[in-house]
């Protein structure tokens, strides 16, 4: 031991600087985070707990207490028996409607928007800037203005209140923002790669499918997350452009929760809400990892 250590009791600095875990800064930081997390998690907790209780238990009024008798009846009722207007087959009808709406809308809108973005970023065709400006302008027009004209348009096309109509609406409304997203991503891909592919004899589609698309997985995942959650959660278009038979899940959920006749079945409402929210939640969990992974890392320079 050196003299200085013995005399003063202070350790000679060496190696990594020691950090105090319980410093004031950390306590404030993590304390705040914890409080905020609890604040957001309590409603979810109440929903889950309530959805697992029977009605007599709910009437006792202790919304925070865990269920004494766990029952899945409310979930079953919400899925297959709850009444929405004329139909009494629960949310299952809305779920399948939503799937039939979301899947094609997501695929169509992303397929078209990514090609748009690719063409705008790499093939500087005549009028590209004008086209892009119009498209971006579309992103800023309020939806409300277009609702009625679109009703007329869909009616004339004969697909008003039918699923294809709503799919068309979702695909169109996703276009400006998705095109912008893809264009901006494709412009970050080095131009030399595009040039190399042209020298190598690939054409418009060849470059898109074999060079650009494999490099763009992250942006496709972002677009899928955006579209699936956006379309699944949509209420406005769903309620306007469909009829009870073709209502998406969100509209059905509203009809269950807001029905005025009879007893308010809180447990069924909670279960129905959780069921509806399950899809976006799953998407976040699955795609989160893909999203973070740097797919294009080490692509060009190194």
């Amino acid at each position, binding site marked *: 031991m050196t003299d200085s250590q013995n005399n003063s009791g202070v350790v000679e600095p060496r190696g990594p600087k020691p950090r105090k875990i319980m410093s004031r800064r950390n306590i404030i930081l993590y304390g705040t985070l914890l409080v905020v997390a609890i604040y957001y998690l309590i409603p979810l907790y109440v929903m889950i707990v309530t959805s697992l209780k029977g009605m007599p238990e709910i009437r006792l009024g202790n919304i925070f207490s865990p269920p004494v008798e766990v029952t899945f009846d409310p979930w079953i009722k919400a899925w297959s028996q709850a009444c929405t207007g004329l139909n009494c087959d629960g949310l299952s009808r809305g779920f399948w409607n939503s799937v039939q709406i979301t899947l094609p809308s997501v695929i169509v809108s992303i397929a078209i928007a990514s090609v748009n973005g690719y063409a705008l970023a790499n093939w500087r065709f005549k009028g590209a800037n004008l086209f892009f400006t119009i498209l971006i302008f579309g992103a800023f027009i309020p939806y409300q203005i277009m609702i009625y004209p679109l009703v007329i348009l869909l009616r004339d096309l004969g697909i008003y209140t039918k699923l294809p109509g709503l799919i068309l609406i979702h695909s169109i409304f996703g276009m400006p923002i998705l095109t912008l997203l893809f264009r901006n991503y494709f412009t970050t891909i*080095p131009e*030399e*790669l595009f*040039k*190399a*592919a*042209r*020298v*190598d*004899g*690939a054409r418009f589609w*060849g470059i898109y499918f*074999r*060079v650009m698309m*494999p*490099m763009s997985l992250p942006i496709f995942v972002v677009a899928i997350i955006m579209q699936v959650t956006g379309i699944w959660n949509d209420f406005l278009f769903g309620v306007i452009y469909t009829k009870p038979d073709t209502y998406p899940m969100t509209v059905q959920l509203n009809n269950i929760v807001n029905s005025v006749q009879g007893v308010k079945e809180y447990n069924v409402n909670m279960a129905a809400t959780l069921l509806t929210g399950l899809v976006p939640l799953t998407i976040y969990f699955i795609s989160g990892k893909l999203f973070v992974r740097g797919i*294009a*890392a*080490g*692509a*060009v*320079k*190194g």
Partner: protein
Amino acid sequence: MNSIEIKNLSLNFGDVKVLKDLNLSVEKGEFLVLLGASGCGKSTLLNCIAGLLDITDGQIFINNQNVTWYEPSERGIGMVFQSYALYPQMSVEGNLSFSLKNAKLSKEEINTRVKNASEILQIEDLLKRKPAALSGGQRQRVAIGRALVRDVEVFLFDEPLSNLDAKLRTELRVEIKRLHHKLKNTMIYVTHDQIEAMTLANRIAIMRDGLILQLDNPKTIYNFPVNKYVAEFIGSPSMNFIEGRLDGTNFEFDELSFNLEGYSFKEKIKANSQVWLGVRPENIVINEADKTMPVNCDVVVEVVEPMGADTLVWSSLNGKELRFTVEGNKIVNIGDKLNVGFDPAHVSIFDFETEDRL
């Protein structure tokens, strides 16, 4: 026979004229280097030859075929880019065979070609790897291989060595030279590095503002630059320039006077004209006692930069900076008084106004 012929090529980006009525012909098997500072249009010219840019006017012939309206892949060219531009999601083999698959060649043909190219470039062990798992030098080799497999007439290189470190650059430079010797293809090589240009080229085209200033073999360009810009651009350390008057063969500036008998003038000089005298640092030598050089003067050493093989000495002549190189093992100290001289046969004289060689 000309491999590439460019006739009256012009390219404008909006109002900016990047290339101006440019003519150039490259012989079969020639190694031509386009050299110039950034923004001189050399890469643009290469992209025009490759067909990656739409030209404003003019014609391009490759192999005596007018390819002006051809797609890049139909022109019989292979191109190597500065950033390698390898397809990151494909293996080395995939990168090499991409163009062949696009051309719909048979499997056996693709395999033989990929095998040949990878043998020439010594990348056989890397075929299964992805570009991300390669070093810079290996990536550039693959990029060259991608041009090689296509079995084309003309190779275009767009600053292929600029992203590599100094040592690797020297190695790959030699390798490109060897490759050219072996394949005997026509190659056009864009660079801003004059060493690469001097070492690789059969002919160098020095470009500035979209024009070719001088097109000649490296030796001629180095020894007989057509104007002051070329003289300044080529050579490191760069040429010394002294401003003065030329009266017959007498060069006068301030109180000094050099007799330049022995310099071969291109034309008869007007009496008493203002000129630049350019002398390369390595053409200035320290005189021994008997003053062997025709032109002499005394200078004081101000800065000494030893560079190993030789030493760069900074001094001044009547207040004008004068650089010259001496042998590396000669001891020169700051403050030394030296008598230096040069041979008028090895200088360049430029008109003061037009900066053209006289």
